[in-house]
């Protein structure tokens, strides 16, 4: 079973070989001595070679580990920590989906509130009061600054027209 570096190397190797195959299907342009696939092929070949080097490094490291030559510190981050990251990405993903539907102001207020609650659930009524205050202030202030003063049009919601 390959380690973290080995898996990363395998993913990069598979991706680069796949794209390398696609690059040979790119059309040739008679006006230019090298076609549009020339430069990508150089990069992809480089990625493939480096990926193999990474896989080899990982294999050597794991072999050394098995024979007790080297020791590695474990990952300090707990499963709960990674779970929180995953949930944070999910909340952000939901924000990205809701943004064109609800519009910037509503979606942002909901996102800021949701992420605050997720990262640090309020333990008192003051905490619960602070969550919507920060959420509404963030959405309102950024909307005011960007739309009113910097002329940057922020997304309108197709469901809310707001």
């Amino acid at each position, binding site marked *: 079973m390959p380690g973290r570096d080995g898996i990363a190397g395998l993913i990069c190797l598979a991706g*680069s070989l796949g794209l390398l195959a696609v690059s040979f299907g790119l059309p040739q342009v008679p006006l230019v001595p090298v076609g549009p696939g020339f430069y*990508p092929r150089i990069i992809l070949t480089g990625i493939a070679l480096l990926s193999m080097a990474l896989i080899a490094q990982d294999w050597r490291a794991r072999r050394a580990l098995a024979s007790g030559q*080297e020791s590695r510190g474990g990952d300090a981050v707990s499963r*709960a920590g990674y779970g*929180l*990251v995953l949930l944070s990405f999910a909340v952000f993903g939901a*924000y990205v989906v809701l*943004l064109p539907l609800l519009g910037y102001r509503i979606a942002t207020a909901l996102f*800021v509130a949701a992420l605050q609650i997720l*990262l640090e659930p309020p333990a008192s009524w003051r905490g619960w009061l602070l969550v919507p205050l920060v959420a509404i202030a963030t959405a309102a202030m950024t909307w005011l600054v960007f739309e009113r003063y910097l002329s940057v049009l922020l997304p309108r919601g197709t469901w809310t027209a707001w």
Partner: protein
Amino acid sequence: MFELLGQALIDIVQWKYLLPLFVGTLVGVIGGSLPGVTITMTVIVVLPFTFGLDPLQGLACMTGVYVGGSAGGLITACLLGIPGTPSAIATTFDGFPMARNGEPGRAVWLGVWSSFFGGLLGGVFLILVTGPLAALALEFGPWEYFSLFVLALAMVAGLTEGSLVKGLLSGAIGMLITVIGTDPIMGVPRFTFDSPFLAGGFPFLPVLIGVFAFSQIMSDVEKLRQPGAATTAAARPMLSVSQLKVIGEILTRPVLLLWSTIVGIVIGVLPAIGGSAANMLAWDQARKMSKTPDRFGKGTPEGIIASESSNNANVGGSLVTIMAFGIPGDAVTAVMLGAMTIHGIQSGPLFVSQQPKLAYGIYAAYIVAHVLMVAVIAATALLLLRMTRIRLAVLAPVVLTLCVVGAYALNNTMAGIYVLLIFGVVGYLLVKGGFPLAPLILGLILGDQIELNLVRSIMSDPDPWLFITRPISGGLLLAAAISVALAIWQHLRHRERQAEAEPDF
């Protein structure tokens, strides 16, 4: 030159430019002083606010952030023992012991004035050297540019901590991102798989924001529930001190100040090494040069002067590289390069001669930002110390919201936000996989230019030996090869030392 600089200084102190410069410096100092918020993150957050400004206003604001951020990290480094930014790590070594020995004001102000003098000396270098370097760059053909960009990538990949293979792979992935979309010569679609989303390629800024902002925020989020993650409560130290005495302490050590500044400038000019390396190296050099090296790490003023003068001089060096060659010296200047592109400015060797008002405006903004930085820290140091208590639960959603605005405002389309999310995930996974992000970003910035110059050189003359036989191009490629060879040698030596350090039972 001096006439243009004088005019630029008069222009920059007009409210129209002074206000964004002041706001940028203030935000930079705040961002720099918050542990966990880097200068790159602060520049990314400020970037969307500059979209509606005119080019010099926007760049003045960004310059302010860069200067303010480089100095802001010293406040928490001295008073809490936590460097606000990586470029203030070495300041902690002597600043914190000095503050604990009952001299917090002396520690902070030694840092502030060292940043000021180091930054201004860096500014002199910036003004004097950018023009001649740009003139030299004008002599470059596509062969030389190709080789210069290869050198930049090789140095960045080689100088990253950890695995050299991962550094090179990261740079190559950055370059690969640039080939998605239409090819820059004939406009043929590449790797788009008939998707309209991929047809235009990935815009640089949302990728950069996604990679940097998410990797940093999510790395903080994963530690949130760990024991000991609570923020340090800050006491209220007395910062009043005789400013003349502190300035005297710095100016009576001219060799130290000058040498540390030179270290900072040289590291700034070299692509993507950054202020974090500059302050450590300058501190180490100062200790080696000192007659009393045993006092380093125990609160000696020399340690603070070396660290802080070098990290602000580093800013001047980085700006030289971006203005003369169009190569970002670090992630902060990469964002600035993106901002310049948004404002329709082509940085590179013609920038100073074709846009002198803007170029000298940046010089002037850089100088005035140092004065503003001193004023801002004087007025807000204690307040900033209280701001370090802002919880990640509040900071993270606000920063991510500003990232979304920045990605959206680029083209006013949702595509930028989708790219932000995709590369947010990619950036986090790369960091967790131990891949350095600096080579990826440089590959992303230089990828297009490397291809253009490679194809142009082949179209001019298909002889590949020209890359080696043309003196400048050959020299640059040789330097790139030496850089990679040195990196391999260093990595091997590091591994040997680690093996020796491990006890053999």
